[in-house]
């Protein structure tokens, strides 16, 4: 039953492993974009500590949206996407596996890099832990929403910008609860409420978004 899921996931991970530099581009973008903020805002530690969670979250959001653009594009170009849609087995599993592969390749490295960035911005240890837990819960949502955007904008001329325009409004709750968790810890409150809501968002989007993405793939390849 899980054969489609496992096969697509293994295939995408192998493809990523063959193009190692390309797979590292999202995390490189993330590091560069985050490093620009102190240059623009100024080096005051107090200000940087305050805006760090927001910056990390916004940059992970952008990194996810910029990298998800190619999720189905390659498969569409060489015709394998149509074959995968025609093949027996659930399209939902295909969508699930694609989103999971995107998260493993471009979401997980961001989570590894985030604590380092947090240290550079002077976040205390407890805030760092909250940030990482939030990213662990939140970045899969971004991969799922991004895969929906990628399926809707498949093969369009201005696909990249369009994807960002249509997905970012949908991702605002994730951003709010993700960055809010770190802010809550900073002001001495518990982050568990934010994390629970992020978890709820993750479950809801894991159940609903792949269905919409499968429909979008059918619309786009008709």
């Amino acid at each position, binding site marked *: 039953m899980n054969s489609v899921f496992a096969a697509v996931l293994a295939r995408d991970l192998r493809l990523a492993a063959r193009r190692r530099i390309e797979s590292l581009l999202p995390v490189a973008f993330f590091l560069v974009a985050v490093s620009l903020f102190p240059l623009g805002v100024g080096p005051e530690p107090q200000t940087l500590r305050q805006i760090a969670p927001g910056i990390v979250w916004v940059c992970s959001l952008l990194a996810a949206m910029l990298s998800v653009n190619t999720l189905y594009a390659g498969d569409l170009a060489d015709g394998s996407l149509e074959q995968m849609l025609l093949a027996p087995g659930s399209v939902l599993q295909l969508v699930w596996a694609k989103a999971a592969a995107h998260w493993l390749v471009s979401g997980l490295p961001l989570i590894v890099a985030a604590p380092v960035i947090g240290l550079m911005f002077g976040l205390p240890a407890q805030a760092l832990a909250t940030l990482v837990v939030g990213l662990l819960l939140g970045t899969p949502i971004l991969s799922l929403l991004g895969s929906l955007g990628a399926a809707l904008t498949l093969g369009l001329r201005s696909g990249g910008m369009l994807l960002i325009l249509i997905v970012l409004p949908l991702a605002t709750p994730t951003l*709010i609860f993700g960055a*809010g968790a770190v802010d809550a810890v900073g002001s001495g409150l518990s982050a568990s409420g934010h994390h629970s809501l992020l978890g709820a968002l993750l479950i809801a989007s894991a159940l609903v978004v792949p269905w919409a993405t499968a429909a979008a793939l059918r619309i786009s390849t008709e």
Partner: protein
Amino acid sequence: MPLTLYTFSSPPRFYALTGVLVPVCWALCVALTAAGLWMGLFVAPTDATQGEVYRIIFIHVPAAWMSMLLYLVMAFWAGIGWAFNARLASMVARAIAPTGAMFTFLALWTGALWGRPTWGTYWVWDARLTSELILLFLYLGYIALTEAIDDVRRADQAGALLAIVGSVNIPIIYFSVKWWNTLHQGATVSLTAAPKMADTMLTAMLLMTFACWAYAFAVVFTRTRALILERECGAAWVRELAPGGAR
């Protein structure tokens, strides 16, 4: 022929019907606007706390209501068009989007003009303002997506999917923004604390709301008629209608 639910889902009949309805809608719109503005600007009393500036409410609140309602109406017709392959429903959905975006922008714009004298600032990151701004982005995303796809059928269906996902998301966005706002420094001025409205104010606001409805119907029908002519330009009845026109 019997009048059924599907009678006017045929583009030629819809075209003929709206040809009659559009002038009626415009006339209603003008009459209601005149009555509403007269009530609002001359009859309604001056507000005890805000003075004359509160009168912007007579365009601001109807615009905000329309912006939210039209998104749901758009998602509904887009969904009908997608589920039942009803061409006309998809065209109506496409025709609603610019009007909805216009009302959203109008609500934000008049809100800013109202906020300056009463709150002392054009913009605060209040829950309602922020979610209205995100609603504008949702409209823009829908318009951009449907305009970017050349194939009409795919554009309609992709737009329908996006509109439905967006309308499911609107409550989530609203409540998350609301919670975000209460966690940060809250807005110092709240509209919910305003005193109860005078009857004449409410009447003027309802009149303006109906005027906005009439305007929305007139504009959406006109735009749908243009879309019908564009998409059905190969049909015999359109050729008869515009001989020597675009082919």
